[in-house]
């Protein structure tokens, strides 16, 4: 049986028709940015390519990349392709380093985003009649408003609770009968902890589906969230530069990879070092070209997110390619004594150990010119023993797992429960002290 879809015609377009549509939209977008965005005109001229040289999707690979740095350099509106009179909304990503990156949406962009987010909800198994508890932050961050518009388009009841005030979130989920939860996976687990303290049992709540994203998470974390929150946990992908939430969504049917809406975005996977496109199924950095955006179309935007892509048909009936679960960011990647380590890899190891909570902190430092990795792990009652040797054996076994799996020597430090900072947005997992000196 084919899954429910929001826009069945486009979500099931045969590949040939989908690619023909992509090429047409790509060519038209390239004409627009070449005419309206000086940055792209210069970049294309320098690369010796004009929009009408792009005659196949293969030709996309001849175009230059766009990076977050290019966006910062064009702060705030330099990359906009539409005049400001047509921009109806402005969002910005948090600027952890310097200025934020700014994006603008025309009315048509908002409509596209709304439709894609509605598709996303249906892909996750949500429908009209659902009560969607939207705990993504509302504001400059795209999460809250993006999910909100999609939920309304779907005809669901949306609770615009935004982030924070966890006790109140739990009370509202309980009293309002929320059936769908949208937030970051780490916040979902934080809610589970708080609910336990409040004496609220998620089995008595009506939650059925959780749509979690905005930070990388692991399959093991999915198992834990599903068990603790008593719902089906699905992965969503999006980033403000490309649109916001709803760029790709895992379907509840296959629960195996996130469908990226190819009628609006062209994905490529490249080797982050050589910048060459890698074969289907190979891990690398995700690059996205937006082909319908008007406000700020981006050509081959380097997302820094690490994933792989498959064009295999999916059990749900959608023809759009699937991204593998995001396994980290190429700029989150920490290099420890020459070994590439993603925080998500360490998370998978920790969650696999009975009693270890997925709250952890990695501290990277340099001592005597050698990189050191310290892993802070919280000790809860399931792990605790009155005997030193048992706790020391636990530390040693985690260190051994990390060494075996990643080839990196680490030092595990056991810390008191709830001392690692909880985040209501994106969790901080790494403190790299090497950068401070």
């Amino acid at each position, binding site marked *: 049986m084919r899954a429910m879809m929001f826009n069945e015609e486009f979500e099931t377009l045969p590949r040939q028709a989908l690619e023909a549509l992509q090429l047409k939209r790509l060519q038209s977008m390239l004409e627009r940015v070449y005419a309206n965005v000086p940055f792209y005109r210069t970049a294309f001229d320098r690369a010796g390519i004009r929009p009408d040289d792009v005659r196949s999707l293969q030709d996309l690979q001849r175009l230059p990349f766009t990076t977050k740095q290019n966006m910062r350099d064009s702060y705030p509106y330099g990359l906009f392709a539409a005049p400001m009179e047509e921009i109806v909304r402005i969002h910005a990503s948090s600027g952890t380093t310097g200025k934020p990156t700014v994006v603008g949406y025309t009315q048509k962009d908002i409509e596209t985003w709304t439709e894609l987010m509605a598709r996303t909800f249906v892909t996750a198994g949500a429908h009209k009649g659902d009560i969607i508890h939207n705990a993504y932050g509302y504001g400059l961050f795209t999460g809250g408003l993006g999910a909100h518009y999609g939920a309304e388009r779907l005809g669901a009841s949306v609770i615009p609770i935004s982030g924070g005030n966890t006790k109140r979130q739990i009370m509202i989920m309980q009293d309002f009968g929320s059936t769908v939860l949208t937030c970051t996976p780490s916040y979902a687990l934080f809610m589970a902890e708080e609910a336990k303290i409040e004496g609220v049992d998620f089995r008595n709540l009506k939650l059925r589906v959780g749509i979690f994203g905005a930070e990388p998470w692991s399959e093991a974390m999915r198992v834990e969230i599903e068990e603790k929150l008593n719902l089906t946990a699905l992965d969503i992908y999006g980033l403000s530069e490309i649109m916001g939430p709803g760029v790709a969504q895992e379907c509840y049917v296959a629960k195996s990879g996130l469908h990226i809406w190819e009628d609006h975005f062209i994905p490529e996977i490249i080797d982050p070092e050589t910048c060459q496109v890698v074969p289907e199924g190979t891990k690398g950095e995700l690059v996205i070209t937006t082909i319908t955006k008007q406000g700020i179309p981006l050509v081959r935007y380097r997302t820094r997110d690490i994933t792989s892509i498959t064009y295999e048909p999916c059990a749900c009936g959608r023809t759009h390619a699937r991204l593998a679960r995001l396994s980290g960011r190429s700029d989150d990647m920490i290099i420890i004594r020459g070994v590439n380590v993603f925080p998500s890899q360490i998370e998978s190891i920790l969650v696999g150990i009975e009693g270890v909570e997925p709250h952890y902190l990695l501290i990277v430092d340099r001592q005597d010119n050698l990189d050191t990795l310290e892993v802070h792990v919280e*000790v*809860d*009652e399931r792990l*605790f*023993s*009155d*005997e*030193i040797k048992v*706790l*020391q054996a636990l530390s040693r076994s985690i260190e051994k797992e990390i060494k075996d799996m990643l080839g990196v020597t680490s030092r595990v*430090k*056991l*810390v*008191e*429960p*709830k*001392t690692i900072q909880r985040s209501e947005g994106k969790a901080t997992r790494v403190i790299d002290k090497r950068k401070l000196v």
Partner: protein
Amino acid sequence: MHVEQISIFIENKSGRLAEVTRILGDAGVNIRALSLADTSDFGILRLIVNDREKAKAVLKEKGFTVSKTDVVAVEVPDRPGGLSLILQTLDGENINVEYMYAFVERCGENAVIIFRFDETDRAIKSLLDKGFNVLEGERLYGM
């Protein structure tokens, strides 16, 4: 014959031990005996208190990881070689002492030692068989 000890995980940073004793003091819990085992990163504080349930509840409320462990309290003749007699008995039975510490109060003429064994019940039986006095928990909490 078992005595209930509470064990608390504390990070090796300043003020944590003081925090535990302050919480217990505020709750009116009296510490009867204690031992602190430590490593460079963390310590385990083991306590015999007059009110275990209350101690556990107030510490957990403040976010500490707390567990209960069964230990054994044995009266030891307060003279040279007193402890040795007990340890020889246990050694003869192949019972391991995981750790031990002394109780603050004396029991008449005798000292009281708290033992954590790998096999608690077998240890109690061998000690009783050899005529040692193993103290009841209730008696100890109120001493």
